[in-house]
């Protein structure tokens, strides 16, 4: 995966506006109901604020029929309750984008360079329970992208709830 071209996508956000992949980017598969996604959420939002030159996309691919807390309506309620997010929260209703990326968990994080090439994939950092980790692995990857340097830790094991595929 690392070094390969990231699949393009166009998906709707919680207001129905469509967003397409533009690099450099961070794509985070996430959701409303998973404690791992919730535990890392604020750290990922902070990264988005700290790297305004990078396009961030949160994508919820979960089967909302079986997990109603991940419905488009529930996504909008969450973003509105937060007063907005620093990245669009996109609905992958068909789950095609998640399949194209090989997303396994929520969260599952991908960093993509300006040429649309995967440069990092995995967890935001080493411990969902330790806020001081501060999404270090992802930040290191983005710093590497900015500097045009190789990313030392380019792939880590994503940690979280399994993506809830449709039957």
């Amino acid at each position, binding site marked *: 995966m690392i070094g390969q071209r990231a699949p393009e996508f166009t998906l709707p956000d919680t207001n129905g506006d469509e967003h397409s992949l533009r690099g450099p980017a961070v794509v985070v598969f996430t959701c409303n*109901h*998973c*404690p*791992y996604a*919730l*535990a890392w959420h604020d750290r990922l939002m902070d990264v988005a604020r700290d790297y305004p030159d990078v396009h961030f996309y949160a994508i919820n691919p979960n089967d909302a029929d*079986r*997990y109603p807390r991940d419905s488009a309506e529930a996504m909008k309620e969450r973003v509105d309750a937060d007063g907005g997010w620093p990245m669009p929260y996109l609905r992958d209703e068909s789950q095609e984008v998640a399949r194209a990326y090989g997303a396994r968990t929520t969260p599952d994080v991908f960093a993509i360079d300006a040429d649309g090439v995967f440069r990092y994939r995995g967890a935001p950092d080493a411990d*969902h*329970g330790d*806020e001081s980790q501060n999404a270090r692995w992802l930040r290191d990857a983005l710093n590497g992208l900015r500097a045009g340097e190789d990313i030392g830790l380019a792939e880590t094991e994503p*940690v*979280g*709830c*399994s993506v*809830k595929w449709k039957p």
Partner: protein
Amino acid sequence: MTVELLWWDGCPSYPETLRELEEILDQEGLQAAVALIEVKDDEQAQRERFPGSPTVRIDGEDVVPPGDGEPFSLTCRVYRTRDGRVSPTPDPEDLRDAIRRAA
């Protein structure tokens, strides 16, 4: 004392809870074994009244009782630690308190 750990393989959190349970039982000087119960489908989740993985029951009582209306399904439970953080596992002190109450 019966200690049950109900888990679902869509959630990676139960080994951490099992380790913490066994540590606390050992620290409290108790010999109770932890019965592992895998919940495999929605029918079983309903039957077991399983609000998500992991769920720990001591003498049949959930150590962190789910809220009213919490659905029973194959999902990961969202816990809160005592300092307010979201966690995929119960706060170890909640486990310890429940074990002490039952001992």
